[in-house]
């Protein structure tokens, strides 16, 4: 049992490294898209808010697995040259879009949780709408966004497990390979994989909990 652990651990750690990379890239792009979508959704223009609402509902209403397959199989089949990508960009794009829906709801919730009077006071001192957003509303909203973002990061980490189906050598994939080498130690190997995920996610969840007691929070829409 010991030598199975010793011989598979390096593979699993390689997989964990890949999981780590994908989750970091995804939280960056997902937050970027989500922040823009979320801020635009707080505006009062139906032309903007309806399509963005449809975007969020379409992604929320379908499993992530579907997004991944649509982006990985359907887009390259269109024949458009810049849509021809490998598994890795497909996985990152799909995960980022999926993440952006969560981030957008958090950003919108946090902005709307800042009392209206704050923005109005800023406008009354002569600030433009952008200035009041940037200097007055956002700094206050940012604190409320921190705790639920921890939850989103954990959702991303767990989401990376699914991209193993398009052939990305992340943690689950590494575990699958290891079980082919040691088929009798399935339980042990998947147990180790679970433990590595736990070691990555649990501190993030604890940190989010700590941030929540410190900064307060907006509720994550389920």
């Amino acid at each position, binding site marked *: 049992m010991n030598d199975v652990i010793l011989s598979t651990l390096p593979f699993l750690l390689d997989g964990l490294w890949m999981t780590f990379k994908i989750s970091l890239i995804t939280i960056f792009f997902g937050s970027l898209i989500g922040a823009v979508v979320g801020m635009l959704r707080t505006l009062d223009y139906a032309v903007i808010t309806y399509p963005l609402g449809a975007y969020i509902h379409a992604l929320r209403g379908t499993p992530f697995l579907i997004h991944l397959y*649509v982006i990985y*199989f359907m887009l390259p089949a269109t024949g458009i040259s810049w849509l021809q990508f490998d598994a890795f960009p497909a996985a990152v794009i799909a995960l980022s879009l999926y993440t952006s829906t969560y981030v957008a709801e958090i950003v919108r919730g946090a902005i709307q949780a800042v009392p209206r009077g704050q923005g109005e006071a800023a406008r009354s001192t002569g600030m433009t709408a952008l200035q009041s957003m940037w200097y007055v509303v956002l700094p206050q909203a940012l604190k409320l966004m921190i705790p639920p973002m921890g939850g989103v990061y954990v959702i991303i980490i767990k*989401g990376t497990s699914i991209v193993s189906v398009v052939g990305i050598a992340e943690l689950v994939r590494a575990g699958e390979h290891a079980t082919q080498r040691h088929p009798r130690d399935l339980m042990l190997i998947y147990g180790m994989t679970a433990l590595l995920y736990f070691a990555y*996610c649990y501190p993030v969840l604890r940190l989010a909990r700590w941030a929540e007691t410190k900064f307060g929070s907006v509720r994550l829409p389920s």
Partner: protein
Amino acid sequence: MDWILDFYNYRVVAQYLPEFARGLGSTAWISLLALGISLSVGTITAIMRMSANPAVWRFAAGYVQVIRSTPLLIQLYLIYFALPALPLLGRRLDEIEGGIIALGLNAGAYMSEIIRAGIESISRGQTEAAMSVGMTYPQRMRYVILPQAFARVAPPLLGQTAVLIKDSSLVSFIGVFELFGAGLVVLNERLMPNEAFLTVAICYLMIYTVMLSVTGYAKRRLGGAAG
């Protein structure tokens, strides 16, 4: 009209309609059974979480944290591939049983957090009033606290149910035929990703729309949600 057939050949979809319908039905009853498990597990662990006995609440808290910190896919693999023969059953779980149990245990952890929030939101006076008429602890829970708690957190519970339905697509990885599996059949037999996955996406969106309107109804009917 050729470009439509090029992009989305509805004739092929029509030909596979029975397959998609079978998948939709399979997704529905897998989700329903998993929902039953998750609500029972969620209620029990929520009550355990609030126990005064540290061994009991630590166990419940540990369960919730372990589930929340590991991906559903690994939980599915552990329960289906790695679980040895069960002594009571005399055999290993088959893929449908394994999938339903894994889904139920996974969702149960999230449900438990919601239900606990619901129970904690019921004012202390309710418990005191129930005690003053001589109700025992199980009676108080059964007749006073839980009905109010469930009414209050019905909308988030329904939201979590929508997540559960989407997550059920992952059981196709352990070889269960459901909605997503129907898409895979079309992909493998006809090599038509658009027809396969757009159709599946539409089916999931239909389920989601139904869930949204049920949630909206529950919100209106039961007043503001606390969870």
